[in-house]
């Protein structure tokens, strides 16, 4: 279980308790966080679940697969702290993480 803060582009915040094993993309959809789309349901192919991860948490997340690396060059407004939220799986280690939703996914 981890408590995670989503900050929408509008500034609206959601503090969410998420069970281990759930993807951040799924949790965002369940919570109605605006701006996460997730067309491919977590298959790492649509690049519509882009999110910015607070720098201090980046090294606590599983490393990117080759496909995620490729897709992260293809999202709107990529940054050094960009990730695909469907590839971030919640664990106790992520308790307190802060995530920002980009302006748009497509």
């Amino acid at each position, binding site marked *: 279980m981890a408590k995670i803060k989503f900050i929408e582009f509008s500034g609206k915040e959601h503090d969410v308790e998420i069970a281990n094993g759930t993807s951040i993309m799924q949790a965002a*959809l369940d919570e*109605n966080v*605006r701006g996460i*789309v*997730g*067309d*491919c*349901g977590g*298959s790492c*192919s*649509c*690049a*519509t679940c882009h999110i910015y991860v607070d720098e201090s948490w980046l090294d606590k997340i599983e490393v990117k697969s080759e*496909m995620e690396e*490729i*897709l992260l*060059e*293809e*999202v*709107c407004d990529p940054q050094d702290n960009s990730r695909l939220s469907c590839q971030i799986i919640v664990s106790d280690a992520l308790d307190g993480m802060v995530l920002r939703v980009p302006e*748009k*996914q*497509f």
Partner: protein
Amino acid sequence: MSESNATGEVYWDPYRPDINLDPYPYFKRLREQAPLYYNKEYDFYALSRFDDINKYFSDTTTFSSARSDIMEFIKEDDLEIPDGMFIWHDPPRHTSYRNIVTRVFTPRRMNELESKIRAYCARCLDPMIGETNFNFIDDFGAQLPGGVIGMLLGIPDEDRDIIRDRIDNSLRTESGKPMESSQSSYQGEGFEDYVEWRKNNPSNDLMTDLLNAEFTDPDGVKRKLTTEEVLIFINVIAGAGNETTSRLIGWTGKLLGDHPDQRRQIAKDLSLVPAAIEEILRCEPPGPSVARYVTKDVEIHGQIVPAGAVMQFILSSANRDESRFADGEKFNIHREGSPHITFGRGVHACLGAALARVEGRVGLEEMLKRFPDWELDMANAEMSASSTTRGWDSLPAFLR
């Protein structure tokens, strides 16, 4: 009102033109009374609730695409699906082919086409300025998607209409009847000459990319695509991206024609366009349902669906499921909350979603800039008869 509609019978016939005109009351009853529906006449099962579709789509072992995603083809005994027709492969074969194009159809690359797409829209729409009659399909919807795919592939403008007509005809059904299983969708010919020519005249286009792409094939061999595979890829992309996007443009004309108040809000503030396109996609999915082959017995809602059955996933029902979408039957561009499921889900989720969205968005902006006001001429509109898409073959309107 038809009899079954009046009595509230739980029923859905995908081939009946009267139901096809407004299937939504039927879908609502399926969701409420028969979340696992069985149709005896055509021998298929159907899922209609959002959560069910979302859940079972990801189980590609039980719900296979390897016999296609179209009911009539799934039932065919001697169906042959060539390598590279990835829309009809299961993982890992699917993964190995799809990965080649996943990196090409991304949001960034598709948005980069925006100015070219805008110019193409202008070419379709400028001649209509000053006219009083406009047909959303003939004058725009039938042209833009093929033009854009041709643009991507590097095919000369003058040859695009011929190719589009050939593909669309191969996916059409006779009104009220199942599709002829002998029809060879996605396998049509017509691109060979270009592929041969491109081999010797490489350029900055998708065809050249496909000819040069290196990938690891399903047998683990690192190689390039064969010419046949390149042709199959092009046919899959053109077949999946043409009529669907044309239907999106038709539904845009229809829904905003039916809701002039919302249309005026968008015309006044074009920043509402992306949300409007998402709401149009939710309300009227151009591809309303996709089918899967059931590989093993599976229990759903207390009932066994046997191996060998056909399962329809009714996306257009899921999009109006009240448990996800409050006031789901209502068209509301200001809607907040869950994204729709119009582009499918899971490994087969639409490859061209980012492209369709740019076309829908730019197309609507360019229409509204020229014709902010229209009234539909429904007496002369025609609904399609196709097993794979639903929408208008002709949608005339009076421009104001």
